[in-house]
């Protein structure tokens, strides 16, 4: 099972230039200065690191908009 800490680690390592400590885990990341290309990088790493495949439709339906949602998504597929 992953936690928000794992996602924060990915965001830090992605060199986006964001203060990860200031991120609200419940708010959509695109509302917190993370743009679409940054999200591509983050989700790419999530897929690679946690061996999960993220469907395009799930992104379009905002199922991975926030850190909490990403954690929930990954853990649901790991179960």
């Amino acid at each position: 099972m992953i936690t928000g800490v794992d996602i924060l680690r990915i965001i830090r390592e992605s060199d986006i230039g964001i203060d990860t400590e200031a991120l609200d885990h419940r708010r959509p990341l695109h509302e917190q200065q993370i743009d679409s290309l940054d999200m591509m990088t983050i989700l790419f790493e999530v897929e690679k690191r946690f061996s999960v495949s993220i469907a395009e439709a799930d992104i379009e339906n905002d199922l991975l908009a926030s850190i909490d949602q990403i954690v929930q998504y990954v853990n649901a597929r790991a179960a």
Partner: protein
Amino acid sequence: MIGISDIASYIPGNRISNLDRCEALGADKAFVSNKIGIFSVARKAVHEETSDLCCAAFERLRQRGRVEPSRIQAVVVCTQNPDYSLPHTSAIVHGKLGLPEQCAAFDISLGCSGYVYGLAVIEGFMKGAGLAHGLLFTADPYSKIIDENDKNTSLLFGDAATVTYVAESPVFATGRSTFGTRGKGYEGLICRDKTLSMNGRAIFNFAASTVPDDVRNSLAMNGLSIGDIDRFLIHQGSKYIVEFLSKALELPPEKTPFECAEYGNTVSSSLPLMLENVLGDASIRRVLMTGFGVGLSWATTVLFRQ
């Protein structure tokens, strides 16, 4: 030995400013400037055909006085936006340039991986047929198929053409090349009903997951390491992807240029446009080039200065 003897290019003078149309396209200016990294895209004139772009590039080559048209034995055009579905654009270029009839001419249908593939194809063809003078053109004006209201593509792609003179006593010899295809991902960048569409995430994921390993494989096959390379020419898809791949491979930023800010992603012309700029720099001994994109397709090679 045959290899790259000279390169010339033609970028049309027309430009569309990306920053000026951000508001209309719903794009953020800072995003376009800092992430996409392309401030304007080149657009051919409406009356210019793909073959015309090729001929314009060749005229620049011819003016240097090192190529004699009457000696050309092979003409290859890399394009997926030909003048016509038939005949092949290389035949049209052959006619417009008045090349001799004892000359092979054929097209290669490839996009952003096309220059590396194209070099391998023309060199292999010429070696097999015992030829000494060939021209490899790249000319893929996506303006023919772009919906200018689609910010996913309109802000990226620009028109250009290059010609590489492949001959004996080359400046650069081509080392061993790697090639790959992921046909299952073909819909990621596709032209349907004469209109281009791109799934940005699919293309990014493809490049991010494929190119770093391919570059490492190419280096290994050529008996080299990252420290042995003087220039890393990464296909200029966007500033973001070039920087991403550069970081993934831990490449020195000063050796990994991003040069297309004023004209855009020119597809198969992307790599030779940059290579043209280092041809005359004797300090650059080894160049790694990697092209990747539509297909999905990728190819990497190393060039060695002779």
